[in-house]
Structures are given as structure tokens and as C-alpha cells.
């Protein structure tokens, strides 16, 4: 088969070049801060502060990681965050996917009203104090359950799921399955779910990333330090490094710690807390790209 070469005009070349240059510039602007954090976490803090670290680490040291990783709370935080992330993602998916599917079904009576009510809650909610009172009255303060459940189901995700099912699961499929004697439950589990890997991956990733980075719920609803997620432990470490003690306590070790180790910790904390979730992205990337297109093309 002959390969036909498309003629590219000069204008095309110029536009392509501009787009290419812009893309590279955006890539550098996005990637360099991440790269800098990484090299800074291995560099001498004095050299960082004097602007001598730009492209490669200088005065290589691992003291930040030694300090961070010897904190027993880090491992506790990791464990908790992993538990919260997995449980929250599973729970969120278990509600969001069937919910989105149900709302996509035209034979679901009252779905219009239900959808409006759900959408209403996207813009209007009780706020922090009523939520706190409710959680307190339900005796869910200081429990893992509240951190897993609170916030893992969002109307936005339900709408994204509904949009996916509306566009990708045609009514004819259900009719064909019904003719073969397939009920609603079997249709959902045996036909819909296998065809919905993309949306499951996307929603799962949304919930997992949100939960991984979440700290506010723990800040308000949990005081038991055994239950704190990684982000709060890291935040503690970071603030610990930045808090000035009284001058009387400012012995040489304190100062060295405050000015040098604490600065390194700042970068080390970012690496330690984001690396695991960054590692998840490549595996979900192909679904994620498809997922963000959901609802963007009609037909």
C-alpha cells in the first residue's frame, strides 16, 4: 500500500512549530518545579538558599530522608492513608458507579427529580458546623469510618459516571440481554461493568488522589493520633521545622535543625508524600486520558 504524504503548507509548519515550542515550554514550567524539589531534597540547604542549586544536586546529603523516615509516625501515617485510600475508593466506587448507571437508565422513574436534588447539593450544603454536629451526634468522631466515608461520594463523580453510561451503554444492549433472559442485576454486573473499565479507573483515580491528599477531615474529626493520615503527619513535620522556639531554647543544635534540616525536610516531605500516588498514574493513564474526554464529544 502506497504511503501518501500530506502536503504541509508553510503556515502549517509555523503553527506546528509554535505549538511545539509552547508545549515544551509548558512541559518545562510544569516539570521543573517537581525536578527542583527532587534535587533540592538531596542538596546542601545552604547551597539551595544561596541559589547555587539549579539543575543538579550539590553537596549531596540524605539527611532529610533519614530524619523523615526515622519518624515512626510516618509509617503509621502511610498505613492509615493507604487504608483510607483503598477503603474510600472501593466505597466510593461501590456507590458512584451503580448510582451513575441507575441515573442513566431512562426507565428509572423519578430520575429527573433525583438528579435535580443531587445537583442542588453541589451548590448548597450544610457547612462545617452542622456536619460536625451530625458526625458528633452519630458518635463517628475519632473513627476510621468517618475519614473513609466523608467526602468520597461526590455528585460530580456521579454525573461523570452517568454521562459515561448514557453514551456508552445503548438501550439496545439491554433489550438484547433481556430477550436472552438477563435481569437487571446480571446485566449490570456481567455486561455493564466489563464495558466500563474506563469510568471505573477514572472515578477510582479521582477518589484515590483526593483521599491521598486529604487532611482537613482528619484535622477536624479526629484527635486520636493513631488515626492520622500521612498528610497530617507530614504537615506536623513541616511546621515543626518552621516553628521558632523561644530564644532560650535556641541552642546550636536547635538552630542547625531549624535552619538546615527543616529546609531539607520541606522538600523531602513533598517527595515522600507524593511519590506513591505519582507511581499510580502511569498505570491509570490510558484510562485517564479516555476518561477526561467523557462528555466532550457527542454522537
Amino acid at each position: 500500500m502506497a504511503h501518501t504524504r500530506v502536503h504541509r503548507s508553510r503556515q502549517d509548519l509555523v503553527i506546528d512549530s509554535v505549538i511545539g515550542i509552547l508545549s515544551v515550554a509548558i512541559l518545562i514550567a510544569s516539570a521543573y518545579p517537581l525536578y527542583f524539589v527532587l534535587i533540592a531534597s538531596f542538596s546542601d540547604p545552604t547551597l539551595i538558599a544561596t541559589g547555587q542549586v539549579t539543575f543538579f544536586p550539590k553537596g549531596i546529603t540524605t539527611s532529610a530522608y533519614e530524619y523523615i523516615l526515622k519518624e515512626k509516625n510516618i509509617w503509621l501515617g502511610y498505613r492509615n492513608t493507604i487504608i483510607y485510600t483503598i477503603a474510600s475508593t472501593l466505597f466510593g466506587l461501590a456507590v458512584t458507579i451503580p448510582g451513575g448507571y441507575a441515573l442513566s437508565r431512562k426507565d428509572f422513574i423519578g430520575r429527573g427529580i433525583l438528579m435535580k436534588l443531587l445537583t442542588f447539593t453541589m451548590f448548597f450544603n450544610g457547612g462545617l458546623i452542622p456536619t460536625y454536629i451530625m458526625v458528633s451526634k452519630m458518635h463517628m468522631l475519632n473513627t476510621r469510618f468517618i475519614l473513609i466515608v466523608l467526602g468520597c461520594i461526590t455528585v460530580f463523580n456521579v454525573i461523570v459516571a452517568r454521562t459515561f453510561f448514557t453514551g456508552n451503554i445503548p438501550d439496545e444492549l439491554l433489550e438484547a440481554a433481556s430477550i436472552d433472559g438477563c435481569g437487571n442485576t446480571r446485566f449490570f454486573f456481567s455486561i455493564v461493568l466489563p464495558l466500563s473499565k474506563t469510568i471505573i479507573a477514572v472515578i477510582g483515580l479521582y477518589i484515590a488522589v483526593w483521599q491521598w491528599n486529604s487532611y482537613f477531615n482528619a484535622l477536624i474529626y479526629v484527635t486520636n493520633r493513631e488515626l492520622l493520615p500521612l498528610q497530617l503527619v507530614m504537615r506536623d513535620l513541616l511546621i515543626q521545622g518552621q516553628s521558632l522556639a523561644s530564644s532560650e531554647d535556641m541552642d546550636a543544635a536547635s538552630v542547625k535543625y531549624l535552619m538546615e534540616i527543616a529546609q531539607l525536610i520541606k522538600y523531602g516531605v513533598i517527595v515522600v508524600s507524593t511519590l506513591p500516588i505519582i507511581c499510580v498514574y502511569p498505570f491509570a493513564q490510558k484510562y485517564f486520558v479516555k476518561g477526561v474526554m467523557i462528555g466532550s464529544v457527542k454522537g
Partner: protein
Amino acid sequence: MKKKTRVLSAILAACMLAAAATSCSSSGNESSSADPAPAAPDAPSAADNNEAAAQTPPESTGGPSSQYFNADGSMILPLVQEETRFRVLWNKQPNDKGTMADKVILNQAYEATGITWDVEEVSEQGWDEKVSVVFASNDLPDLFCGKIDNLINFTDQCLDVTDMLPEYAPYMADFYFNQYPAIFGAEAFEGRMYSMPQVRVNNICYGGGWEINTRWLKNVGMELPETIDDLYEVLKAFRDQDANGNGDPNDEIPYSFVKIDANNKVGERGVTQWMNAFGMINDGANKAEHYIMAEDGKIIFTPLDQRFYDMLVYLNKLYSENLIDKDSFVQEVTDQYAKATSDKIGFATCGGLITELWGETVSDDIEYILPPKSQYDRALKQSDPPAELNLHVYTITTACEQPELLLLFQEYCNTGFDNRVLSLFGPEGGAWLWNDEEKMVNNSDFTDKPYATVAQARATLAPNYRMASIMEEGDEGKREYVGFSLKYNQSHKDFYGVAGGAAYGECFPLGNDTAENTAERSEMFAEISTYLQNFIAESIMNGIDEAKWEAHKTNCQKLNVEGFVANYQALYDSLMSLRG
């Protein structure tokens, strides 16, 4: 369709009206539906007192409760026969590397009194949010241990302990009411105490330091500067010569400071420390730095004073001649530290210990100097009394059914030197040691300990600033300062002593205003502060002349500085009249 829209609009409007009516009625009912407060006998509530009431301590009526105290004043222990538990919300310090079980004084107090705390630890960074939520939802613990900055807004949910103190905490009552009424004035709202402070008497709190490298001075053949003109010449020599002796005459930074806007602590490490050299202090209510000062009983706004103008002119001269680090208005403390420890800075207006800026190596060459003399007298702010004071740290709420036991518990922790030391510093061998002369010195050996610094050791082993700990003047006398700490403390004596002669006599008295006035001042200062930070930086970098000064005066007028000063004047007059 139109009809439908109309109906919908009508329904929505009705809903809004109903919601508004409900919220009005519910807000009116809130206080009555709240749990009844076990108020102290005859304690008037803050709400009953709209006008600024006396900040003077109440006359003590009656002595310690005979139920809990022996005739000789000692506490009858245990306080309760059956274990009594209290729910406590605890502000966990970032430096605390342990658990509540590490706080020796608490364990000792549990055992001695029979009282136990069920502590809910809240990280310091989430403390303010948590406290606000807890108050707003009325899900109150028995006790808050940790500073509540906006306590003035929650006094109706906190127990007024004023009249209970003499009965259940006589040592503390005597300390607040009789020995240091100024501290009572700072803690109380409209003459009533809803919380208790942590206090260390004689722990000098002046945070500013004028620090100069004497090796550099020697290298350029000059003496310690005494006047602003001397300092100008010294800085020029630092700039022009190889003052640090590394062979490069161009890498010296004569003078460096850090940006003004560090949590609004404008005087701590910033350029406003120069106000002291030009006869001004940066004063405000309860040690705030609100650019006001009292002079002959009259409150003035310093940035409108001729001395401030002269200060800006002088600093602009330094800046325009490259004597000031160009990064000063943007750099962080750590940036300055990196330069100072690399021996690149000759002079700095700073705070705290020398090592805090210069590191261990360069610090040996650094000396504190007094604020250089200008055409005006020097002035330094001093606290009244000289004390470390953390207000509103031990707060019993109206939800507590036996508040007297929590007062007794705190009283126990403050009883005797040993307990007081345990409360603030922890046990010997942690943050401190006894030396050969039976003086407390900072520990430096933290081998195999979960903490690595004195600050961490104190936060781990002691309640520290989370309880109403008291260190008396005599207690402080048992502490000994060595090395750079000694130098630091000596510098304070020099500043305030005969040589410095700079302790300003009309510092703003400690004391609280009404909630309305405090909020009004705070709102006004938020705008004023932002404007001033820009104005100061602009004036130093680009210069100031009469025209700019006049424009500045107009801007201040627009920011209602007049009202701000009037507000302060009223508070000052009120507090001074109460002092007689």
C-alpha cells in the same frame, strides 16, 4: 411556562423568608437551649457588662476551701476518693515528639489528686479551626489546654473563674490578683477571668538584637559604632574593603535584614527595629506592634511622626549606597542564615541568640550592640512586668461539672518549685541539668532520645505553654545561662540598664478592651499594616521627600488612622485611670 416560573419564584421566596425567620428565632434560642452553665457564685457575665469594667483584680473574699486545703495551706490529697475523669482538648506542639504519657507532671498529678484527663490531642496547625468548630457546635470539652486567641468571642461558653480562684487556687489567685495585677489585666475581659495564662517572671522578652561582626570591624580597622553616623562609616568600610578577609572585596553584604511581613511581626527581624534608634517604640495593646506609642500620655501614630520620616531618610541613604542587602525585602530567615553562616554579612538587625542567624562558626565573632544614637533618644519597648506571657491557655468550659477540681489540679501543678519546673521544663536530664553550682542549665546530650533539641525536649516532657504554668522571679533565679545564651541575656541587661538607658517609660499597659473595640482596631490595622509595609519598603528603596510624605499623610487619613489612634487613646486612658 410563565405561570410555572411565577409559582416557582413564589415558592423560593417563601422558602427564603421561612429560612430567615427560622435562623432569627434559632439564634435567639441558642443560648437558652445550651447546657446550663455551672457559673461561679455571683459571677456577672460579660454580656451584663457592656461598658469597659474595671480591669483591677477583685478583692479576695474568703480563703482557701477547707474541703481541699489544710489550715497550713497545703492541699489535702487525693482531692477525690474515686477516680474522676475530665475531657481535655490539648494543643499538641509541633516539637512534641512523644505522647501525653511523657509529661511527668501530669502523671504525678494524676496519682496525687485522683483526677485523670482523657486527652484529645489536636495538632497545633489545626488548633484554631478545631476550637472554633467545638465552640460553634457547643460540643465542649471540660478543659482547653492551649492558647485560644479569640477567647473574647467565646466567653459565654467559658467559665468565669475569677471568684473561684481564691477558694480553689489560692497560690495562683495571689499571683494574679496581688503580686502581678498587670497580668490579671492582660488576661481578664471586663474585669473577669475566663482563662488563665502561662507566665515566667523576669524572662525578658525583647526580641530585637543589633548584631555586628567584630572580626570584620578589626579587618577594616574600626571600632564598635555608637551613633548612626559611625554605623554609616562602618558599613561603607564593609562594602569597600575585604572585610571578611577571603580575598574578594566584593562579596561582603554590609547590612542585611529579612522582609517586614513575617506574620506581621514587623519589629522582630525587620527594618522597623530602627525605630528604637530614632526614639520610637512599636507598641500596642497587650504587646501588639501596631505602630503606636504613648508620649506624655498621648497616643501617637509613629509613621506620621517626624522621627519616622528621618528614619526612612537615613535608611534610604544606606540603601541607595548599596549598604543594605537588596534581597532584604523579599528574603526569608533561612536565606539570611545561609548568607550569614557563609560569612557574607557584617551587620544585621535580628532577634534571639546570635547563633540563630550566624551559625556556630561565625557566632564567635559577633557582638550585640546598642541601638546607635541618633538625634533622638534611644527607646526600647519593655514588657510590664518583664515576663513571658502566654494568655488564655488554661480554659475551663461551662460544660465542666466539677470545675473546682480542674482549678485544684492546676494549682497542684504550680505548687512548689519542683512542680513548677516539671510543668514548664520537664524533669532533669531532659531539657535541662543541674550544674555544679546547683543551677539549671540547658542539656545538650540527647543521645538515644526521641527528641534532638532543647525545644523538643521541653515540648515532649512538659506541658510547657499548654497549661497555666507559673515561674516566679525566685524560680528564674535558679536558671543559669551559659555561652551564647548568657551573651544574649546580658545584652538585654545592657539595653535596658544604665549603659543602654533606653527602657521606654510609657509602654502601653497590659489590659483588654471590649470585644467591639478590639475587633474594630483589628480590622483597621489589617488595612493600615498592608499599606505601611509597602510604604516603608517603597520609601527605603526609592527615597522619600516632602511631597511623598504629604501624600503619605493623606493616605493615612483615608485609612482612618485618626480613628485608630482615638480608639487606642480611649483604651490607654481607661487602663491608666484604673492604675491610679
